[in-house]
């Protein structure tokens, strides 16, 4: 079924060919897997799709080996840190974000595998999970745009499950026509403009097409967005488009164009972290409820299973009746999941750990200093995992001078948000 198209690459160096064969074999392996999974016959003919110069990023070292560059690439991939710390600034912790996904004709392009749409939806799914993990008191909504129209896939809500379900469903939808920036932005604006002033209003557009079909002058809309302090960021899948440049520059967002899938992921993850709040945004005290999870004891004779308020309007079924739950301290409405906004009295219900998790954005852990391994004579083992330091660089915590390996450095900064060695030394005496 598969043939290696070596003949096409006669201009390539022998190393490039070897690399290509390797890559081919890996892909073949992957393909077998994926065919098993979702039976996509056209994917077997990958070489017909495009002429890719994967070898161009590779460089031979003096002895003609590729090993060094491959290692370098892997190392760099690990090291890349999109989370540049802002230092001590006010951040918009309560975020209201609309993700606009372009589902126009261009999303069928196969330069992301298997195609742009599937790849994007998968990444957005991951993004939504990560987003709620890092910003528990924020909300997200999803808009899709195609055929010159924009439609809401999900409303602004704080429940990741709903979004992920919708995204999974969207995979089967067809792509077609042109996207409309104007329509999607105005749809997002209609909801966002009613959000309270202390929260951050954001739109993230994943834009694959190079054109947009607008019913009116988009620059007028950009002015309105700017006045409403809605921040629009764009991730382009193909190339830099002027209107997006202006849009993001005016509204204070960021504009990036992806290089490949892993870069796409990085760029998406960049938006997980809350943006710095604009100095003009309101400061206000917010009423919040911290309900406790209570379960009516079996011994209680009066206890009856009851519906959660959140399930009243959902048609998805699920466990409608339950014995326990979170009860709103103000009106006693019952919910099974937090965080949520009370349907009855509008109080924001969160749990204390949620707030605490959002807290680390304000005091980010300082970046560790990178230094070559050769300079380190004292420590040969990583402070955290106790493994031997083998990579060519090590990382030193600036406050306690402990040494870490790359993996632990990443884990500490991305997940733990505090230096284990510092905590250890603090609690010891």
């Amino acid at each position, binding site marked *: 079924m598969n043939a290696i198209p070596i003949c096409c690459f006669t201009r390539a160096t022998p190393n490039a060919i070897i690399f290509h064969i390797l890559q081919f074999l890996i892909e073949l392996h992957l393909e077998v897997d994926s065919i098993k999974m979702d039976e996509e016959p056209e994917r077997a003919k990958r070489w017909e799709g495009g002429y890719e110069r994967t070898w161009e990023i590779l460089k031979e070292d003096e002895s003609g080996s590729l090993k060094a560059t491959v290692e370098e690439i892997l190392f760099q991939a690990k090291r890349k840190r999109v989370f540049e710390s802002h230092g001590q600034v006010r951040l918009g912790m309560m975020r209201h974000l609309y993700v606009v996904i372009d589902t126009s004709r261009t999303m069928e392009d196969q330069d992301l595998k298997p195609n742009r749409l599937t790849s994007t939806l998968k990444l957005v799914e991951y993004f939504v999970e990560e987003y709620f993990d890092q910003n528990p008191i924020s909300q997200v909504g999803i808009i899709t745009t195609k055929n010159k129209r924009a439609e809401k896939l999900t409303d602004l809500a704080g429940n990741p499950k709903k979004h992920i379900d919708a995204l999974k469903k969207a995979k089967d939808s067809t792509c077609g026509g042109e996207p409309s920036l104007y329509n999607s932005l105005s749809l997002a604006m209609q909801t966002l403009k009613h959000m309270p002033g202390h929260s951050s209003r954001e739109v993230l557009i994943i834009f694959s097409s190079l054109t*947009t079909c607008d019913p009116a002058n988009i620059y007028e809309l950009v002015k309105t967005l700017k006045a409403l302090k809605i921040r629009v960021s764009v991730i382009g899948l193909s*190339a*830099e*488009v002027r209107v997006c440049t202006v849009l993001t520059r005016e509204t204070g967002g960021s504009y990036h164009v*992806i*290089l490949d899938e892993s870069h796409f992921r990085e760029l998406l993850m960049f938006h997980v972290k809350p943006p710095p709040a604009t100095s003009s945004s309101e400061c206000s005290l917010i009423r919040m409820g911290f309900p406790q999870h209570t379960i009516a004891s079996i011994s209680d004779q009066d206890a009856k299973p009851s519906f959660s308020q959140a399930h009243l309007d959902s048609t998805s079924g699920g466990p409608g009746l339950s014995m326990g739950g979170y009860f709103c301290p103000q009106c006693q409405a019952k919910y099974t999941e937090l965080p949520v906004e009370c349907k009855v009295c509008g109080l924001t219900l969160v749990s204390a750990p949620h707030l605490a998790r959002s807290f680390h954005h304000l005091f980010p852990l300082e970046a560790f200093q990178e230094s070559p391994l050769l300079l380190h004579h004292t420590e040969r083992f990583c402070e955290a995992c106790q493994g031997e330091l083998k990579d060519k660089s090590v990382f030193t915590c600036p406050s306690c001078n402990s040494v870490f390996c790359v993996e632990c450095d990443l884990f500490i900064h991305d997940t733990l948000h505090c230096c284990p060695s510092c905590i250890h030394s603090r609690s010891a005496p």
Partner: protein
Amino acid sequence: MKLNIEGLLVYFPYDYIYPEQYSYMLELKRTLDAKGHGVLEMPSGTGKTISLLSLIVAYQREYPLEVTKLIYCSRTVPEIEKVVEELRKLMEFYSKETGEKNNILALALSSRKNLCVHPEVSSLRFGKEVDGKCHSLTASYIRAQRHSNPSLPSCRFYEEFDAMGKQVPLPAGVYNLDDLKDFGRRKGWCPYYLARYSILHANIIVYSYHYLLDPKIADLVSKELSKKSVVVFDEAHNIDNVCIDSMSVNITRRTLDRSQANVETLQNTILKIKETDAAKLKEEYRRLVEGLKEANVARETDIYMSNPVLPDEILQEAVPGSIRTAEHFVGFMKRFLEYLKARLRIHHVVQESAPQFLKDIFEKVCIDRKPLRFCAERLRSLLRTLEIADIADFSAITLISNFATLVSTYSKGFTIIIEPFEDRTPTIANPVLHFSCMDPSIAIKPVFERFQSVIITSGTLSPLDIYPRILDFRPVTVASFTMTLARTCLCPLVVGRGNDQVAMTSKFETREDFAVIRNYGNLLLEMSAIVPDGIVAFFTSYTYMENIVASWYEQGILENVQRNKLIFIETPDAAETSMALEKYQEACENGRGAILLSVARGKVSEGIDFVHHFGRAVIMFGVPYVYTQSRILKARLEYLRDQFQIRENDFLTFDAMRHAAQCVGRAIRGKTDYGLMIFADKRYARADKRGKLPRWIQEHLTDGSLNLTIDETVQLSKHFLRQMAHSIHDISNCNVQCFCQLNLSQEDQLGLSLLTLEQLQSEDMLQKIAQIAHQA
């Protein structure tokens, strides 16, 4: 910053400098030191203008006796204004740094249309009308008449200037066109005459090519400029065509008819004057006997278009007796006109040289060579004597007399071609007499001879050795500079085949081929899907574009393209084209995306810049060879071969490649810009074509980007566009205002393509700089 360029202190008004600018100044300085001419090629957007200005101004200040004047010639009015603004920046920097007031006078000069402040005259729309109207108000004899009859209309600005302006020189400073107008309004002086008068003592003059190259204008405006001037021709890649156009004359039947009418008017006027004021004609006769030398001391306002480069020895001679009296001259002109009319009544193409023509005219109507030579001068004198105000009416007869003078003065370098009809419409008789100049060096020769340094510079002058040959001068420096880039922001690709492996070319034999047209269409379609915002596509000619677009329409390609982008087309009509351009830019601006189909050698390819999103890709369909069947071109090629030993093919390729380079160069207008350059013809891959592209494009044209298929092109372009978008935006947060609206961060370019003073002084950087200049 202050630079030390081989011992010369140069003030440079920016904090950073590109290495190639430094190198450029170095070469320029050497040229000035040697008091010779130079040919310098540097890509657009690298700050050519400011380098030129700052070095030459520094030179002027350092050696005021060596270089007294800078004459900066540019092509269009906006370009002239841009140069003056740069100059203003430089002067401000000077006065800030040195703390003293500058005494340099710099000004721009343009036509009356752009400078007139007279309320009625300036409201006229066409340049010719403004000139004619102005002339009817300010000519010397009109003003003389006014002494006797004060009711005649006058221009108060001119009168005021004439009375007061000449005693007080224009105060030092930098004057753009608008500044001159303001100054004129404030003082009540005519800005045009003020500027024309002031160029004699100005230190820097910025004006159009024509003031120096067109003999009719140069004679009036630039004749008295000092020998110790430095002349700069910017954007000079077309300078040979400008020279040729300024010397060529086309005569149609309409011209002859109008001349006929002119002659009759002249005759009547002579008769009238004879009755009233015979002494006047006698006086003229006396003057003509004495020779033209004194007659030539004309009043500045009497600009009868006249006198294409008359050699000095002729001016010293007296006008021959046969045309000395007015009636005889009119009779002479009549005979000449009749002869021309007879020549135009032909049914086949005639081509002959100037001596052949003179022999024929002598045999047929007994007109000698000598009186013909004086024709232009004699007519000028007559018109002055007869006090005819509106010169615009007499343009036809002036043209004929110019032709007479030229044809009898030059035996070499010109050819006469009489065509009974146009090639496209062989059934409609429309005889034209082309008196075409084949040697650009004739027009530019006085410039090279008179001025001590002439600098020819542009973004595209490759191959450099051909300009000195066709303009017939010996330069002391010939250099090409490349662009040092922090990132590779241009991506030239040569597409040679379609996906079906059929060769793509606009070669004459295959240009009608269905497969070629389809492949060109596919290329456009594919590119329209991956290139954001604007694409500019160039065809080799209007007819070729029409054919291709028609057949794309039939094949449904246009419909598919329109799904991605809107399509706009350049037409020969200027108004239509500017409308299309406007809409094109609007479509690029608001994200719809657009394609502009235009023609190499057209208006778009020469004067319009497509910065940033207005031109993310340029596609050049075919090699823009000039129409080789034209007789004028054939004659010129023959002449080039015989006189300059330039082979026909060499010249044609050179000409085609400089236009191709001009076209693709439209997309890159600076270091922060980026764009694809797609050459869609397999012939570009050949060494003889490729070698004639400018060095800064050639550098990026690797073997890997030659002879690609459409698919490969798409893949490479996608990669390029993503990379470019990436590098801009990772650093887009910086808001440092630096060089030329730079929005790349300085740190990225610093040390690489942007230098501070300290970096410039380091040893290895100087070595690097030495390599930038490529001595041809």
